[in-house]
């Protein structure tokens, strides 16, 4: 059978997916399931208590139709409802994003270590696959495949939530389709899919550092990966206390320690973006837009991180090639 480099890389990524199906696929699916379940329970609780207390949430009473509802809602509150629905869609992915951060963190930490520990590296190394391709496939799995699956599952969960909420509101006489027309699902999906490249660039220094530890450590990569930056931070703090050197503690923790340990959690790049927030939900949601997010590309922080990641990954490849565990 013919094999090309791209084909080999594809199968290497596929292999990573097989091995980490639990973290990459089932973790977001289960999170999504729990999320939907909790929300439905919340809605049901609300309905039950509402019914008991004789409280009725319906807009427009019995003569509900689009025209009356449109009249009833002015521009501002329509925006608010739309933004609220958008937030519902985002929220599922945001929670999965936190899970994603943990999954990617521990995936990277084990990526070049687990097979050394159980010696299956000897099998992988008996195949005509370069160490560069191996490491690259793991970087792609962590920074593209995992977030992509999360976004897809998150979007589907979000849509499900949206329909559930709309359905619940429609029981109170609000038209489902009108409500849905106030939300911007396509824009939300585009924003989330579009931020995957941003995630890749932002997460790279953490991925690089963890994989370097993973390829280098003879044992306990977690301890090395976390203890080393923390120890350096403490030493810097101590020297600062003595007044012998002048390295900013804040700078170290924010721009080094957090970047090499915490950047796998999505959304970190918003720290490099100005004007997040707003006076009302609609403004807040629009401040999370893709064009705003991508202004992070103008920050030196992001690109210095990418450059550092390239160096760390090159070292990881070198260790992968030459580390001799006998």
């Amino acid at each position, binding site marked *: *059978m013919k094999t090309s480099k791209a084909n080999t890389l594809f199968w290497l990524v596929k292999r990573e997916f097989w091995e980490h199906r639990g973290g990459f696929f089932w973790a977001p699916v289960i999170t999504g399931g729990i999320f939907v379940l909790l929300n439905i329970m919340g809605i049901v609780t609300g309905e039950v208590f509402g019914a008991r207390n004789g409280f009725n949430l319906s807009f427009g009473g019995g003569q509900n139709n689009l025209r009356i509802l449109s009249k009833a809602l002015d521009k501002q509150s329509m925006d608010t409802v739309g933004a609220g629905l958008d937030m519902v869609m985002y929220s599922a992915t945001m929670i999965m994003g936190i899970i994603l951060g943990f999954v990617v963190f521990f995936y990277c930490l084990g990526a070049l270590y687990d097979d050394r520990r159980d010696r299956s590296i000897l099998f992988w190394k008996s195949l005509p696959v370069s160490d560069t391709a191996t490491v690259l496939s793991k970087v792609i799995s962590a920074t593209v495949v995992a977030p992509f699956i999360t976004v897809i599952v998150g979007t589907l969960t979000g849509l499900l939530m949206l329909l559930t909420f709309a359905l619940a509101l429609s029981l109170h006489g609000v038209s489902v389709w009108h409500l849905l027309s106030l939300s911007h699902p396509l824009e939300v999906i585009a924003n989330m899919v579009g931020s995957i490249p941003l995630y890749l660039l932002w997460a790279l220094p953490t991925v690089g550092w963890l994989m370097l530890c993973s390829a280098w450590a003879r044992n306990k990569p977690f301890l090395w990966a976390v203890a080393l930056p923390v120890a350096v931070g403490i030493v810097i703090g101590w020297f600062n206390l003595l007044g012998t050197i002048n390295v900013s503690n804040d700078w170290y923790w924010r721009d080094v320690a957090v970047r090499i340990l915490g950047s796998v959690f999505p959304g970190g790049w918003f720290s490099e973006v100005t004007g997040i927030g707003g006076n009302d939900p609609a403004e807040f949601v629009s401040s999370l837009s893709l064009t705003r997010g991508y202004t992070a590309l103008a920050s030196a922080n992001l690109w210095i991180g990418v450059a550092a990641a390239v160096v760390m990954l090159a070292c990881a490849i070198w260790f992968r090639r030459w580390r001799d565990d006998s």
Partner: protein
Amino acid sequence: MSAVISASNLSKRYKATLALDQVSFQIEPGRIVGLIGPNGAGKTTALKAILGLTDFSGELNVLGFDPRKQRDKLMGEVCFIADVAVLPRWIKVHEVVDFVAHVHPRFDRAKCEAFLARTKLQPNQRVRQMSKGMIVQLHLSLVMAIDAKLLILDEPTLGLDILYRKQFYQSLLEDYFDENKTIIVTTHQVEEVEHILTDLMFIRDGRIVLDADMDAVGERYIEVMVNADKADAARALKPLDERQVFGKCIFLFDGVGRAQLEALGETRRPSISDLFVATMKGTYA
């Protein structure tokens, strides 16, 4: 045809110990070489050097490649089975077949599936659900479906029962080995490979102490069963080893003329294990 492997002055030092000490050898195509040595003699280090898994000093050429610099290309021509448990435990049979089929240019999928059909392995079975013997069957099916020039086996049958061990070497001989292929095998179960080897290499403390083909070994080493009255005459010829069985002495000689020995008693070819024990005397002392 040129040598499959030629090594000159290979040395490798781990912190305190010298694992390989100026080792030189050549391996020709179409041979089955047994690399035999006590624990810690440097066998695995030698194999690792050949596979480009470790750095070393000296010259080494494997199939025209330098394993240090051209490892990726080399691995297209070389197959490798380390001792049993190295297939990843999470992988399923059909996954590993798919994977190797797509990354190995010399893999013949139909062949592999034919080998697998002879076993009890199921496509959806995971390695962690298999016994050691089944893992080796799977690994061997994969490896035998690869048309490689060199196969390296490092303790391939360690921990297997006798049925699997016999089957392992039988499959290799019947379905895999031919004059274009070369096999290097290290094992402690010398009796089992004795009859399939064409060449023998003994390694001790990082040095090669014996490197010969089996015919030459039969010429050079002779075992004689001597009655007690002639024992002193036999000792005068400086045997490598001496042991007593049923009141007779068995002497192992290196390079003493056959006619001379036949005068002392019944001669025969020594088993590799006896030869090994005699050669390695005092290793752990």
